[in-house]
């Protein structure tokens, strides 16, 4: 694929070397990295607040601990427009099929943060009514423990997810 070398743009490589690199897929890897960087910068969460952790998630999105620093203040109501699902709160048996439906409706690429111990492992409610860990239903990328986790803990979880997205590229 012919590559145009721009005037004044010094990469230290001759056009033939650049073409060689393109053929080996390195330029596409740079595109991949750019895409990952753009994706992590502008993730839109789907509203999936269930219980107490939802209030802390709202606090994280509000003025004091601002989520829009990372492009995330826009919580999309429709899962079709979202690429991150923060499962915030205890998932009951009745809610589990709904959770899976919402997850399936999200387009690829998508990520899941399980916020709070109830979503991560069932929490203090080891009983008939609560799904013991949301990773029994959807694949989880980052677990954030806490009951409920402070907004700073959720922010650390989000930053960890961003690091993961940036390093691992497009597909999980």
């Amino acid at each position, binding site marked *: 694929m012919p590559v145009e070398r721009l005037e004044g743009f010094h990469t230290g490589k001759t056009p033939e070397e650049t073409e060689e690199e393109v053929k080996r897929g390195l330029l596409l890897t740079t595109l991949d990295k750019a895409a990952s960087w753009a994706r992590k910068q502008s993730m839109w969460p789907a*509203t*999936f*607040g*269930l*219980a*107490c952790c*939802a*209030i*802390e998630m*709202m*606090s994280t999105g*509000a*003025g*004091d601990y601002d989520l829009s620093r990372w492009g995330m203040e826009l*919580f999309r*109501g429709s*899962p079709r427009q979202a690429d991150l699902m923060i499962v915030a*709160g*205890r998932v*009951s*048996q*009745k*809610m589990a*099929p*709904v959770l899976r439906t*919402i997850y399936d409706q999200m387009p690829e690429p998508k990520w899941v943060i399980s916020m709070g111990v109830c979503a991560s492992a069932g929490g*203090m*409610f*080891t*009983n*008939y*009514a*609560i799904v013991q860990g949301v990773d029994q239903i959807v694949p989880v990328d980052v677990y954030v423990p806490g*009951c*409920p986790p*402070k907004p700073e803990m959720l922010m650390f979880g989000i930053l960890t997810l961003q690091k993961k997205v940036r390093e691992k590229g497009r597909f999980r």
Partner: protein
Amino acid sequence: MSREAPPGLGSPDPMSTEEPRQETMIINMGPQHPSTHGVLRLLLELDGETLVSCEPIIGYLHTGIEKNCEYRSWMQAIAFVTRADYLAPFHNELAYCLAVERLLGIEAPPRAQVLRVLFSELNRISSHLVWLATGGLELGAVSVMLYGFREREMVLDIFEMATGLRMNHAYIRIGGVVMDLPPGATEKIADLLGVLPGRIKEYEDLLAKNPIWIERNAGVGVLAAADAIALGVTGPMLRASGIAKDVRRDEPYCGYETYEFDVITREAADCYARFEIRLEEMRQSLRIVEQCLDRLEEPGPVMVEDPKVRWPAQLEVGPDGIGNSPAYVKHIMEESMEALIHHFKMVTEGVKVPEGEVYQVVESPRGELGMYVVSDGEHRPYRVKIRDPSFVNLQAVPTMANGGLIADAIAVIASVDPVMGGVDR
């Protein structure tokens, strides 16, 4: 999850006797929705934009709290009960602890009662702020969301300073409260008292005369007084219909009869009246907090003295929340064997409560919160039933919303202020 209309959809409204219309459309406003205040599902029958009938379907947050309490000791059940209505955790704990104290026949010391009242009223303020924030957001006033949470952060800072946690503290315990206020807390609360009245005035200026807000709330969701009582509705919704029922005034607990505050009522019985009542209740709560601060000048114990009941440890707020103070750990590990044994027994087994049953009510921000506690003489509860106000208030939604527009249904639910954790438990 069933996708057909469940039986009985024709007349879910308990007060109506009409037959269902046949040319209507059935729409699901599902559990995942930005405007339904949590995981509430509404099955709407629509004729154009008008709501013919609406059926709330709950249970999407059922946690089995009541069953789980039967397998834990009396003190551990506090941690479960506090997560039922997660926006008013102090009220859940207070109702439960008062019920158990009645079964035990003890009373918390006066300073503990003042602290209980102080934190209950601060909790009322923070809960009403969340109602204002989310209610405004659902009706389209997005900046109210940011303002409400900004004020709430100030109240949560005080909670964190005193209890170590922002939400779901297990601060109120059987026999008193778990620990006294740290130094500097009263100054912080006094600062809050200086700032909040101005902010509440800001909300009033922003919303009260706003034509859009009035258009969406005035005349919407009218609930007559007789209907309200027949449906078991309590709290700001009942007071908006003109009935001055407030548990703090009628069946006082924790010394509420000695505090000066007004019970706010309105006659209009619509969403706007409930908005006015909740704003005014925030001001009354600030009045009570001020009186509490005056009473906190005298020192005193915050936990009952009886060693068979009191929590054995001295606690303090450390870097990761409340924990045993280092001095106490030194005492039980190095100095006294009996103290260690006593601590072990109290923590693992706990107090044994005599047989009996008690129904204790408390005025939570949403209405009458009742705790029906049954004991059979063991060190575990036999039955804990939480009578949650939102569970009963949601039954009134069809009566209020039928015949209106869908957008009015959103306004009605915002004015009911349900917290699904309490509804589903």
